[in-house]
């Protein structure tokens, strides 16, 4: 029995991704945005730099070990995921992002029933009373909470 190729590929690509991020941090982000100025003892950038080096070392080791395992088993390094699977993983992010854009323009108490209702419909709920109640009750709750906080002067 050979090792499961999926975690190996995931480890390899995630290792490479984290290593690339660490290189970006070490080469550009931390030197430019990590803080400047004279410090007694420890520079403001020291700990972030140390964290990035730890990330880089571990991620490179992970990618290297996974690459060796993949090569020994003659498994491909790259396999395109099915479009359907990819879409299934992506649409919830796009859905929430769309409503975040809406919340930026309209009050959440207006947007919330549409957000909850449409997600319920997308997930297959067809009983109208369930959709209506689930969509409206949390929004009313938020409205009540906001009104209460405004009355006591917190918001």
């Amino acid at each position: 029995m050979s090792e499961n190729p999926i975690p190996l590929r995931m480890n390899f690509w995630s290792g490479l991704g984290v290593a690339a991020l660490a290189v970006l941090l070490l080469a550009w982000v931390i030197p430019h945005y990590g803080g400047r100025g004279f410090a007694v003892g420890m520079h403001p950038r020291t700990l972030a730099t140390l964290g990035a080096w730890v990330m880089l070392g571990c991620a490179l080791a992970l990618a290297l070990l996974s690459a060796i395992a993949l090569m020994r088993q003659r498994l491909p390094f790259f396999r395109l995921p099915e479009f359907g699977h990819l879409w299934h993983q992506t649409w919830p992010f796009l859905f929430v992002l769309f409503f975040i854009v809406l919340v930026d323009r309209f009050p959440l108490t207006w947007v919330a029933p549409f957000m909850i209702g449409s997600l319920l419909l997308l997930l297959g709920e067809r009983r109208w009373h369930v959709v209506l109640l689930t969509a409206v009750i949390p929004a009313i709750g938020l409205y009540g909470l906001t009104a209460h906080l405004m009355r006591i002067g917190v918001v």
Partner: protein
Amino acid sequence: MIGFDAIVSSFAAALHYESIAIILGGVLLGYIVGVIPGLNRAVAIAIAIPLTFYMSAYAAIAFLIGLSKGTAAGSAVSAILLNTPGEPSSAATCLDGFPMARAGKPRKALKVGLLASVVGDLLATLLLIAVAIPFASVALKFGPYELAAILIFALVFIAGMAGGSFLKGLAAGGMGVILGTVGLDPETGAARLTFGYAELMEGVPILPLVIGTLALAEMFVQLDEYRRNKGASVIKLSHDKADDLSFKEFKATLPTVFKSTGIGAFVGALPGLGPSVGAFMAYGLAKRSAKDPDSFGKGNPNGIAAAEAADNAVIPASYIPLFGLGIPGSVSAALLVGAFMIHGIQVGPLMLRDHPEMLFTLFSGMIVASLLMLAVGWYGLRIFAKVTSVPPHIVIPVVIFLCLAGIQVQGYGTFGLVTVFAFAIFGYFLKKFDYSFVTFLVAFIVTPMLEMNLRQAVILSGGDIAILLNRPIALAFVVFTALMALHLSWSGYRQWRQKRLKASGN
């Protein structure tokens, strides 16, 4: 040393009706969240933190501790009736809970689980009280060398023990450290990694970070899994008298409960291991030491008792390093640190010096929470059994709404919403690629303390590392850290080699 009067007044404060109402609210909410599969403790605490903004510091923490305890006990209900653990740590409860419920004894199984949970939780809380105060008294004598060494040791330990790969754990810790340094440098005032955003001057706001990485990311994972896990059926509770738990039956499980509580408390006190490890270790030991090990997995009440007692004992025990040393050993402990920070209290040994009355009232509140857990679980059994039928497609949209509402109500505005979304993507990838979330969060939380102590140590020593020879505790922890890193790397390498040999042998 704490006086008798202080203990009495802390209990009096915890037994005040307002305090009881708040703890009851937390336990009740925790129970409901625990019962609903897919919602876990971390999600519940992350979403509940905004609710506690307008409470006093004690009320907020007591509410969150009640919630944390409630989820641990509630998660057994769905494990037993649905064969789907409300929390990953209740997976061990499924092994005997579901077969017992399917055999027509669901109420008996639930009551064994509840009583084991309460006993485990109560005993571990008493242990916390007994151990944390002497621990904190010693820790107060530590200087920056010792604290910096202990914090680095804790991070490496958590990265190694939190499950999964040690390399991924350390990498996640590195990410946490980098994010923990964002904001104004406390010594020089230099803006670090703020990219010109005033909102980042005080650091990455903790609420969008925890709501994004824990709650919203979890909902994205749930949405992904939803299409695979549709249509689970719930076992209904009967009114059959034979399904009631007798005292004799409960008494028979007590030795297992006590042993499992010990295991859970030990595992909980070690940062990073978490309740799943405790529950499975206790279950394994109960099975091995049983006269009839073959009955385990087929509905043995001792299996439920072992898993639940250990699972619930881990939670209070995980607060030992938190209150004793200021090191959060689990995600829920790290979230509590966040809640303390929001209320302007530094959790750890300094609490014993600066807020002793609050510390003792919290401990008293934890005992009250354990007892309320019993009452809520006992009398709400049928209601909670019904809650398990709430389908995930209703829970997910409501939780997504609560995530956004929590950010909006706190006035974070568009910046907060974008931050929460960015952290949700980050958290999703951490979960999908199995990078240790607990190491990331603990590293993020302890980085300011680590940096302060490291900086003080560097200034005091003048950069001379030989000063460690005069600080035996710090030196011991530096050596432990190096040995731990070597051991974990070596065992990881051996596992990798064994897998490789197995693969080439086939």
